[in-house]
């Protein structure tokens, strides 16, 4: 079974530029998550989708970050304009379902995209 795919793996941009990250979840997984992981810290949830609808985006800085999941499969996360403090690893994860009993709510993570803002 293929895992969660992300691209690019690395990105270096100047501040005030824009950047986009792509994620392809595990086939059949309804729930998709984007996390921001600053060096030396645990991942922080930015947004989560159930199919193509947003479940929670309370921690997404909406003045500069946006995300979409068209057709309930792939997702893109965009930052425009980027700030120095956006330098982090952006992780995408997916799960079979959002919650409930059993193992179906376990999240599987992609390799991440390391963003450096200069």
């Amino acid at each position: 079974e293929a895992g969660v795919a992300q691209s690019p793996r690395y990105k270096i941009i100047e501040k005030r530029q824009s950047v986009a990250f792509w994620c392809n979840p595990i086939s059949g997984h309804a729930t998709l998550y984007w996390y921001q992981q600053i060096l030396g810290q645990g991942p922080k949830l930015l947004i989560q989708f159930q199919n193509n609808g947003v479940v929670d985006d309370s921690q997404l800085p909406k003045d500069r970050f946006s995300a979409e999941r068209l057709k309930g499969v792939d997702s893109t996360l965009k930052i425009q304009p980027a700030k120095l403090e956006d330098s982090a690893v952006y992780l995408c994860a997916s799960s079979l379902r959002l919650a409930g009993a059993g193992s179906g709510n376990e999240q599987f993570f992609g390799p991440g995209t390391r963003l450096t803002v200069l």
Partner: protein
Amino acid sequence: AQTVTQSQPEMSVQEAETVTLSCTYDTSESDYYLFWYKQPPSRQMILVIRQEAYKQQNATENRFSVNFQKAAKSFSLKISDSQLGDAAMYFCASKPSNAGGTSYGKLTFGQGTILTVHP
């Protein structure tokens, strides 16, 4: 609301020996899951072990086991017969079992513990 605290920023162990990583949590949820994730330097986050809070029996996965103390809100990870490949950042995490309210079934991570394995 959920909080997860890992009080050990770094731990080290000799190969073949046993090490225990600590984790405490707080949650207002009545039913929840607890997880340990491993993140090697390559960054791919891998699930090590999961515990359902309503189960009293501690989860085990080969060399990995947990000590779940529900009343104390403690969830430690024991790695037996440590191997060089166990070296990584380990994250403790909690997740409500329900997606209702404001939790949305959100997974909350601790700050992580870097584990070094010495040959």
